[in-house]
């Protein structure tokens, strides 16, 4: 299995940058790297959202973010309720939006399921699809979130 191509990674970097810029007008700092083969667990920063991918592709798009960052994003969206339910809802929506935007490049054969959201440690996340998923670190207003791109075309 080959690594993700540069233009495929760019799709996700652009999507996450666009998300923050649209909602808050502040562009995040974004950097990427391949997750090491020994890192068996996905990052777990407090609240996580996973979008299972199917159709002509397999794998998932996964976002994990800390509570404080999500609360700040809710304020930006003028949402007054900062309940855990809304924090989970938001992290799922972020993951859904980034995965959905990626279809501009990958097309409708990349089928996207509804978000699976997790508070706390993401121990229930299914095994990875790729040997080396790509992890994008997003820094915004002093907070750090992580986006894991673990998708591959089906043979």
């Amino acid at each position: 299995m080959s690594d993700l191509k540069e233009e495929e990674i760019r799709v996700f970097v652009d999507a996450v940058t666009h998300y923050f810029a649209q909602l808050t007008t502040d562009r995040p700092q974004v950097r990427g790297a391949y997750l090491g083969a020994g890192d068996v667990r996905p990052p777990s920063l407090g609240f996580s959202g996973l979008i299972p991918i199917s159709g002509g592709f397999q794998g998932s798009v996964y976002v994990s973010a800390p509570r404080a960052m999500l609360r700040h994003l809710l304020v930006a969206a003028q949402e007054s309720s900062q309940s855990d339910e809304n924090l989970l809802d938001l992290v799922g929506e972020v993951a859904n939006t980034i995965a959905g935007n990626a279809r501009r490049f990958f097309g409708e054969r990349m089928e996207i399921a509804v978000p699976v959201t997790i508070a706390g440690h993401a121990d229930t996340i299914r095994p990875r699809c790729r040997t080396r998923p790509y992890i994008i670190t997003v820094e915004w207003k002093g907070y750090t979130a992580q986006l894991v791109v673990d998708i591959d075309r089906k043979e």
Partner: protein
Amino acid sequence: MKLLIVDDSNVIRQRIARTVADPRLPAIEVVGMARNGVAAIAMFNLHKPQLVTMDLTMPEMDGVQCTERLTSIDPAAMILVVSALSDKATAIKALQKGARGFLYKPFTDEQLITALLELVS
């Protein structure tokens, strides 16, 4: 004008409900908020809204199926799809099923207001 908001995200539903109170829009009354297509059809039959905002990726019944069902009930319904699915084929499919407009997530309040104004004018 009566509006039904259909989206599986509570944060998005509430945001749309707040934004439609903007004075540049004609008076819009939010008559229902549904988290999936099945609930949307029940609310549509109950409240008979003229305007619907419709997410596409939802549990139980997706937004394309729901759009088709709603326009079969009322062909005059004005349905604005509000979705992250950014491929052309999906937008075309939603329009073929009866949607009148398409707004990509993530959206700003201004973009939502503009899309709704285009729809109702």
